């Protein structure tokens, strides 16, 4: 956090000043570790084993915050007796379909609901990264659930969880993660001691956690701990994601993602969403409890915002215009399709996949096989110059005279040359004022897409092809301003907020959305950001002039709530758990919820409210159901649906690991998304042969002084000089083993690439003892590339492509490699070296690691 989010880290220092104890878990000792009270080195890719150990510690010692757990989690809920745990399935849950590598979730359901419609087809869910939808709302569950408030029923969630993690003992944590038991116990003790009415603990992760083949389950494990300890919805609690880009939260809220529409509405699927009704109902889940009832209004209002007057209830709001998914159309599938010649044109908008995406060589080869490429950026980045400066030009794989890709480089406007909102990591929208006009040909994306759309519509004017109707009927009349005819960002924000069609009145929030065509709303979760016709995101009331929650600075979705699920900061009866941890509470006299923040609960629903049996929609949520976006109003310790790789997180080894999974026969996540394409490969892991060809674990991350793929830092002199060269950090022990010297050169080889780096031999890296073996890990920054003021080989070139099944994010925080002293070869010899390693490791274009580990494999327990 001190490394990549230094200004956010001021609040950790503030907490430390007040006596908080800080633990830092990381494969390498960083600037964060330097300020932490306790640092735990961990083997990359084993976090579920560590966190599972904490879950076990809590449950075995009954250290959960029992009142909170009973009131607000599904601990007491009874699960179907058809459910079989990984502990009894050797690493695989019940319902597994080996032919697709996905689960049928029927047996995971709550007792009595096995056929109630909650179970998902996880194959389609995986291909469409359906896990992302749950960012705004949990999964549905039908009907009433059976509970055992004593938590003794063998099939209640509490007992299932306890059995699931029974083997995640301190000894096992040490064996899997390389964390000595004493250290683990220090962490577990401190975490559990900071729980209860008076105390809380916070879990902070950086989004490297998402870059694993089990990334979503990492975060799930953290959420389970925080729920057990009563640390959700309370001040000083939470699971906080440190997101790494100015508006990356906004980029999922108002997504430019293949599978989502604004507000986490799913992109229509050709088979499951043939009609508007089918689409809306798949979100709304008619008859179920929770905040689903209004989904049809959000769907209708979005289409109304898209197609304006042309969208009517009679024509299903132009739903017929929507393009349909047939499966995985994610960025990695696209790149493989580019290599195969299926993609004609590619837009890169402030993004540099030649450096920033996994398997850089595949990225560059894909770009070299397009008809045309449009790059919009501030600087001449690697993804714009791959055709003349890429490493593949040196190896002869890309020959400029033979590369047909037509490249348009269009300079972009910077953040001070345009106005608009960023959504930062706490869901807070902040409006930026424009300081100056962009220079020369530089333009905003708003300008580019507005005018591109205008041109496309001009060129198609008069077309009678049905396929062109969607463009011609599009509501695309934004006022422009200034000498460059810049579209008004405020007008777009107003459309995002939503308005009453008849009067143009901006809506006050998503509860005003209607499904009859009378409202247009571009992103339902952002509704309210332009309430009363005021740009709420532009509010800048100084911090000294408001309370510590600072609700009048910017605007947070939903409804300007700063802490989600804050109903849980009060007990069942609506009283604060303690004076110290007071946040939101029920005011009996006024008959409403009140507090420092906007209550995340129906304002006048009393804690005593109980729905009549069979009530659906929001009315089905009881007065003590704090987790209002979940179908049952509870925080899920066990997820009967919504997560495609299991109802509970389970330790699997990374797709590339030097070690056999000590816990199960199943080596790696059996549902991980793999791409058996000739350009892609996975280094062998046990029980496969030849894993020793790549004996070392490597991990990558950021330096404080650089930003992502370097496009905004290696080009900026005062930053470039602070970290001027690519380097690799190694422990003294590995330096001795591999013959590396401080400030000398090393090169690293994987089945995909070889890269070189200067060596920093440092005590900050340590070998780990894992399963009676010594495991060496190396660390690399991933910022470097071949353009800019400071250059170097790209660490992401080393990775192959294996994805998390829930969200289709690549495993790019852990892999295996070899480390050798000296510089890498150049020219054709470079590929020969990689080929030599591939031969030795048995990697061929036809060979693919088994997704399901064979029963008679070496090391089966």
């Amino acid at each position, binding site marked *: 956090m*001190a490394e990549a989010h*230094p200004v956010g880290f001021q609040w950790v220092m503030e907490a430390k000043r007040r006596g908080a104890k800080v633990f830092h878990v990381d494969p390498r000792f960083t600037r964060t*570790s330097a*300020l932490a009270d306790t640092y735990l080195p961990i083997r990359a890719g084993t976090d579920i084993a560590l966190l599972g150990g904490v879950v076990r510690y809590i449950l075995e010692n009954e250290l959960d915050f029992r009142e909170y757990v009973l009131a607000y989690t599904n601990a007491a809920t009874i699960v179907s007796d058809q459910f079989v745990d990984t502990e009894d399935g050797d690493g695989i849950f019940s319902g597994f379909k080996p032919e697709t590598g996905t689960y049928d979730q029927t047996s995971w359901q709550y007792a009595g609901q096995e056929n109630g419609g909650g179970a998902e087809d996880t194959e389609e869910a995986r291909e469409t990264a359906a896990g992302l939808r749950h960012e705004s709302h949990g999964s549905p569950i039908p009907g009433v659930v059976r509970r055992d408030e004593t938590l003794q029923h063998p099939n209640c969630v509490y007992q299932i969880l306890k059995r699931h993690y029974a083997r995640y003992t301190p000894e096992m944590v040490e064996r899997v993660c390389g964390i*000595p038991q004493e250290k683990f116990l220090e962490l577990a003790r401190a975490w559990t001691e900071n729980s209860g009415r008076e105390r809380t603990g916070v879990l902070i992760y950086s989004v490297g956690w998402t870059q694993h083949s089990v990334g979503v389950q990492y975060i799930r494990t953290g959420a389970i701990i925080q729920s057990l300890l009563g640390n959700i919805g309370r001040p000083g609690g939470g699971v906080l994601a440190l997101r790494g880009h100015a508006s990356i939260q906004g980029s999922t809220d108002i997504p430019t993602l293949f599978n989502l529409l604004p507000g986490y509405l799913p992109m229509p699927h050709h088979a499951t969403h043939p009609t508007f009704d089918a689409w809306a109902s798949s979100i709304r889940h008619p008859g179920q409890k929770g905040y689903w009832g209004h989904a049809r209004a959000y769907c209708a209002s979005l289409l109304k915002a898209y197609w304006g007057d042309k969208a009517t209830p009679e024509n299903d709001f132009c739903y017929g215009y929507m393009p349909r998914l047939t499966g995985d159309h994610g960025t990695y599938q696209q790149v493989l399709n580019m290599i195969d010649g299926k993609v004609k044109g590619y837009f890169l908008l402030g993004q540099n996949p030649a450096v920033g995406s996994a398997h850089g060589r595949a990225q560059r080869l894909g770009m070299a096989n397009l008809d045309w490429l449009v790059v919009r950026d501030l600087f001449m980045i690697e993804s714009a110059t791959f055709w003349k400066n890429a490493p593949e030009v040196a190896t002869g794989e890309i020959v400029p005279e033979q590369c047909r890709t037509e490249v348009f480089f269009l300079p972009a406007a910077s953040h001070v040359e345009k106005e608009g909102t960023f959504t930062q990591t706490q869901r807070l929208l902040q409006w930026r004022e424009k300081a100056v006009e962009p220079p020369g040909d530089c333009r905003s994306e708003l300008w580019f897409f507005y005018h591109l759309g205008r041109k496309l519509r001009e060129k198609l004017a008069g077309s009678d092809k049905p396929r062109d109707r969607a463009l011609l009927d599009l509501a695309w009349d934004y006022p422009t301003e200034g000498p460059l005819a810049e579209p008004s960002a405020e007008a777009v924000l107003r459309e995002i907020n939503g308005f009453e069609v008849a009067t143009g009145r901006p809506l006050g929030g998503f509860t005003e959305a209607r499904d009859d065509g009378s409202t247009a709303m571009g992103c339902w979760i952002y509704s309210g950001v332009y309430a009363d016709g005021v740009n709420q995101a532009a509010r800048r009331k100084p911090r000294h002039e408001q309370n510590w929650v600072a609700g009048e600075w910017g605007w947070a979705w939903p409804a300007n709530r700063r802490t989600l699920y804050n109903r849980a900061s009060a007990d069942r009866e609506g009283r604060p758990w303690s004076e110290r941890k007071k946040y939101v509470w029920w005011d009996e006299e006024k008959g409403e919820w009140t507090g420092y923040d906007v209550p995340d609960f129906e304002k006048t629903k009393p804690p005593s409210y109980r729905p009549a049996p069979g009530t659906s929609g929001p009315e089905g949520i009881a007065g003590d159901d704090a987790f209002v976006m979940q179908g049952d109003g509870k925080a899920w310790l066990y997820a009967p649906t919504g997560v495609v790789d299991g109802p509970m997180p389970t330790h699997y080894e990374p797709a590339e690991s030097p070690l056999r999974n000590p816990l199960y026969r199943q080596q790696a996540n059996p549902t991980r998304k793999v791409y058996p394409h000739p350009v892609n490969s996975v280094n062998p892991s046990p029980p496969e042969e030849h894993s020793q060809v790549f004996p070392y674990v490597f991990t990558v991350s950021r330096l404080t002084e650089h930003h992502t793929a370097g496009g905004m830092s290696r080009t900026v*002199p005062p930053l470039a*000089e602070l970290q001027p060269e690519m380097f690799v950090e190694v422990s*003294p022990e590995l330096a*001795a083993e591999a013959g590396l010297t401080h400030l000398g050169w090393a090169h690293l080889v994987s089945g995909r690439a070889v890269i070189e780096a200067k060596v920093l031999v440092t005590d900050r890296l340590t070998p780990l003892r894992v399963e009676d073996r010594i495991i060496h890990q190396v660390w690399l920054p991933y910022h470097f590339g071949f353009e800019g003021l400071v250059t170097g080989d790209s660490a992401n070139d080393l990775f192959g492509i294996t994805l998390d099944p829930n969200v289709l994010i690549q495993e790019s925080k852990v892999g295996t490699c070899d480390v050798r002293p000296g510089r890498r070869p150049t020219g054709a010899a470079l590929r020969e070296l990689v080929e030599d390693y591939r031969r030795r490791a048995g990697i061929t274009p036809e060979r693919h690691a088994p997704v399901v580990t064979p029963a008679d494999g070496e090391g089966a327990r």
Partner: protein
Amino acid sequence: MTPDPNSLYGPLDPAPEAGWSQAPPRMGFFTDTSVCIGCKACEVACKEWNDVPTSGLDLLGMSYDNTGALTANSWRHVAFVEQPRPAGHRTPPFAGNPTDGSVSPASAAVAAGTGNPTGTDPGVPPGDPDAAARMAAGPEFLGMPGSQPPGRTGTADGRSDFRWLMMSDVCKHCTHAACLDVCPTGALFRTEFGTVVVQEDICNGCGYCIPACPYGVIDQRKGDGRAWKCTLCYDRIGAGKTPACAQACPTESIQYGPLEELRERAAARVATLHERGVPEARLYGHDPDDGVGGDGAFFLLLDEPEVYGLPPDPVVTTRDLPKMWKRAGLAALAMAAAAVAAFVGGSS
């Protein structure tokens, strides 16, 4: 007006002494290294505000320090020291891990051999490997690491303890600033805030100030030849603003304010750290009775000053000037008076 007997050595409030009869309180920096996260925001914020040029694109290998030292092109410098020493109250980071001995002194020694062309003089010349190794090892250092390359110097004992010290260094704005005392052109002067500033419109690049500085802070920019260093953002503080580095600092490691207030705050911070089991916390440059009359920019350190590359006992190099002054003073005054007379005479 007669100069204060302490005007060149001993405790003194320097601004009134330098003729600022309506001087505001003396302003300064307190840099608390115990909360420094080594982010280098101070280095960048300083360069952005003061238009300081880049100072080289070389990997120095001195941990994460690629700046090397305070130079004419780096007015803030964050030092990083990796040490195989216990961090007081903290759990040993590598306890229980299968480690050999520490490599920090050896790596530091290797790094010391790398210079950095900063575009300044003397800039960052290659350092002394032995001294660098000593810094990294801390006081228990028992001699140069062997001839083995890093990684092969381990003992069988392992290394459980480790700490990473970071410190943002800056011009000390001494009470008795030898740079200022020796400056023949009046380019270096004492501001009303008690700070020491090089006036870029006066400096003629004679370089006398460079050897005079007991901290080795002052440096000349090649090409333009002038001396450049921290001005404590003279322009900003004159406008009532905080210096750029202190404003940027994410963790309040760099604090700006009236020096008296900072000294009180620093004493309290040391006491707190001592209570919390950090006995190694100590102040540096805070004492008006030290060899430079106390620094306008002082520090809370977690080890001996030498470990951070600071002189343990700096003394103003013009300490003995008063003795010389008595003899030379009359002559100098007479000469100046003659010069004025000549000027007036010449123009009449």
